[in-house]
């Protein structure tokens, strides 16, 4: 049953958002069933589709890949195990459309991504820092950020 | 006044000649009352902590004095030594006046508490009325303190306190009224005398229950402690008070408990009546048993919500109290 839904979702996503970027993942090892790479412009369309399918937004996160941020949207489903990892490569400094209107849960998730990695979300109702103080002038999860001694950081041997 | 006979005769005679018998009784009574209030509060706080401790599988105070009896005294000394903080934006005359005003009416109520036959500072023929009248003043002081504190939690606590007291004084008075009808007097001595054969708690069980519930609410005790609900309003109306001012609120609360329990004892539990021992012992025993029940209730139940509290008063307690009063009146009319 789980596989059925996943296949159907995969087909639909493939039709709408480009089949080439859609891949099956090794669930036992990677923990998600579908992996989708899409253009940032399609994010809101994807969110609308996932809301239609009755999935929920598990989380949004981003990985700093040097020149660009790799935004990761993870959707899950209550009825059966079907997890979608949607990846969108966004050049640093470029905003993407917010999906907070579709998934209210995205409100805080997007704020966290903004807070930690500086990704701006266009159309977000209240995009400001969530965990760090409002006057912080850095984004700590960017790879070039070094916690100085004033933040309690010091050199470590690894 | 037999209970004053131990005072050396010369002092007694001289003072009586100077002041007259009535004034002297008042002064000695006042001094005794002041002392009694302190001792009573010390004991009650200790009792509360000890009972709470054992209900909660702990010991409670044990370090200072035997069984920790002096713990409260030490706490009181600590509070005396603390700074009286007056935050800058408070309205200070009211802020300072409030703890005094909350304590004074409680003290006055002692005038009519009937510890024994004749062991009473004054037996007023409107004794019950006096207690309720002065009891009503306390809420004014709480409102003053809460409002003057210029703190939102304190203000919310004060508002709650006023609404709660307005609602709960009605069933309190109504249930006391049932007893007054039966005894035919507002004087405590007369009411206790009237319970010669049978305590009123057996003739008026509903009124007794209503009185105890109303009294718990009147003294802001859990589960009716919403004016100072610490998990909602931090400390309610006395959030901004420190040191001795806070201690006065505390003292007033425990003395108030004693007074409402005394009134309950006099109204429903036969006052000083009891075999073998002299009256005052019985009276105190009954009072402290009632207080124990109040403490026991506090450490068992969650707190009511504000609107539920009002609902409870207006939808359950007042109708039942009115009904009880009417039934009492009708039955008395038929019987007598």
């Amino acid at each position: 049953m789980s596989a059925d839904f996943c296949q159907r979702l995969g087909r639909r996503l493939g039709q709408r958002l480009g089949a080439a970027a859609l891949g099956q993942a090794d669930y036992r090892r990677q923990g998600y069933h579908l992996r989708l790479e899409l253009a940032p412009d399609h994010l809101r369309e994807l969110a609308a589709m996932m809301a239609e399918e009755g999935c929920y937004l598990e989380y949004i996160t981003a990985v700093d890949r040097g020149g660009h941020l790799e935004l990761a949207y993870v959707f899950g489903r209550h009825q059966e195990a079907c997890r979608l990892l949607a990846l969108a490569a966004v050049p640093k400094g470029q905003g993407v459309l917010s999906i907070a209107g579709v998934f209210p849960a995205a409100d805080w998730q997007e704020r966290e991504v903004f807070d930690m990695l500086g990704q701006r979300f266009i159309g977000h109702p209240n995009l400001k820092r969530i965990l760090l103080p409002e006057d912080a002038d850095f984004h700590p999860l960017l790879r070039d950020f070094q916690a100085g001694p004033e933040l309690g950081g010091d050199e470590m041997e690894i | 006044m037999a209970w004053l006979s131990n005072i050396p005769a010369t002092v007694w005679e001289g003072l009586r000649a100077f002041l007259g018998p009535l004034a002297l009784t008042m002064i000695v009574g006042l001094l005794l009352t002041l002392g009694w209030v302190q001792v009573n509060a010390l004991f009650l706080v200790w009792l509360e902590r000890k009972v709470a401790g054992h209900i909660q599988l702990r010991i409670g105070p044990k370090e200072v004095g035997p069984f920790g009896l002096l713990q409260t005294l030490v706490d009181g000394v600590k509070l005396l030594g603390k700074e009286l903080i007056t935050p800058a934006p408070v309205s200070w005359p009211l802020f300072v006046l409030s703890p005094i005003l909350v304590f004074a009416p409680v003290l006055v109520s002692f005038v009519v508490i009937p510890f024994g036959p004749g062991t009473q500072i004054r037996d007023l023929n409107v004794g019950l009325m006096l207690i309720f009248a002065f009891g009503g003043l306390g809420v004014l002081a709480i409102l003053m303190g809460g409002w003057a504190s210029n703190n939102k939690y304190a203000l919310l606590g004060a508002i709650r306190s006023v609404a709660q007291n307005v609602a709960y004084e009605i069933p309190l008075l109504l249930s006391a009224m049932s007893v007054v009808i039966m005894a035919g007097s507002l004087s405590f001595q007369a009411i206790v005398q009237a319970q010669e054969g049978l305590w009123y708690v057996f003739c008026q069980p509903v009124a007794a229950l209503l009185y105890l519930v109303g009294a718990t609410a009147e003294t802001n005790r859990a589960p009716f402690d919403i004016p100072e609900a610490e998990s909602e309003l931090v400390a309610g109306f006395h959030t901004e008070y420190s040191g001795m001012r806070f201690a006065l609120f505390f003292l007033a609360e425990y003395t108030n408990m004693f007074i409402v329990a005394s009134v309950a004892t006099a109204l429903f539990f036969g006052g000083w009546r009891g075999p073998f021992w002299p009256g005052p012992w019985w009276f105190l025993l009954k009072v402290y048993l009632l207080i124990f029940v109040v403490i026991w209730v506090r450490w068992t139940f969650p707190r009511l919500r504000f609107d539920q509290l009002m609902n409870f008063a207006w939808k359950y307690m007042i109708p039942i109290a009115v009904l009880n009063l009417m039934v009492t009146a009708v039955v008395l009319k038929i019987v007598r």
Partner: protein
Amino acid sequence: MHRQALTEDTFYLNLGPQHPSTHGVLRLLLRLDGERIVECQPILGYSHRGHEHMAQNRTYLQFMPNPCRMDYLSGLMYNHAYCLALERACGLEVPARAEHLRVICAELNRISSHLLWFGAYLMDLGAFTPFLYAFDDREDILAILGLATGSRLTYSYCRFGGVRDDVGQDFLEGIRAFIPKMRARLKDYDTLVTRNVIFVNRTQGVGVISPELARAHALTGPCLRASGVGYDIRKAEPYGLYPELDFDIPVRAGGDCLDRYLVRVLEIEQSLRIIEQAMARLPGGPVKATGVPQFITPPPGLYHTSYETARGHLGIFLAADGTRVPYRLKFRVPSFGNLGILPKLLPGTLVADTIAILGSMDVVMPEIDR
């Protein structure tokens, strides 16, 4: 907040960050009309310690003590989840005895977390005594877990490919004595709290969350299951020993505070069942896999692991780059989603309800702030 919206009828109240009922350092900026809430804005981050940043500066093993410190109430489960994430990514097998011990300890931890919540929630509602009864029971669990893990709160018991140490006979006997005691206590809790008319009135119909709202706000754990959705990672995507065990997922349909309370109390019973089964079939053998490299290195790629903690769905997202240091490690914490519904839920309720609703969500602030 918007200054111009401040009319004479409403005022702002800062509930927290130092407040008896915010469970850690949460600040709720409330706009009140009398005692009724018009608007609520949670302000987070008071206990942000930068765990995700720390992860990028430590080897996988060095990060081991950190997950316990995110949600200190279900530290062992976080620890288990972290090991699970790495074991899946590296394809490590865990010996059967270790799997059993992990499940026993994790469920004990779940009970202790629920007990603490139970006590704290009752304290929020003004009843102090159940708090100490719950702590008495919790003390037993902490003592038992201390026997196995050597620690009482931040257990750090699991290791990649197993657990740190084998347990002794005293651990097993402690559990055998604990289970009947806990069952007897649950009966007392039922009489003292669950049936209490004041408690029922305080919680019934308060803070109702519909299943749709719960999905939109990504609620998980007992909060979701109280809204009639039987979603539990232990059943939906079973890990460890769970597929082999027989247990139920308590689901309630009302979505109010009372149902959230009941779901957690029923979960304590189910956890006891799980522990009994795991104890009955506890095999012998090693507790650590052999051949686990000293510096564990998952192959490059993106990994996700789901875990059901006491508060809900914990997701661990790992971007590995083939070194011994995580490239990016993200924790999807359950409380983050559960707290996010608050601005939606609170308007129109009373201050006392705010405390009841906030308490019923069972948020742990250090987990949200990370």
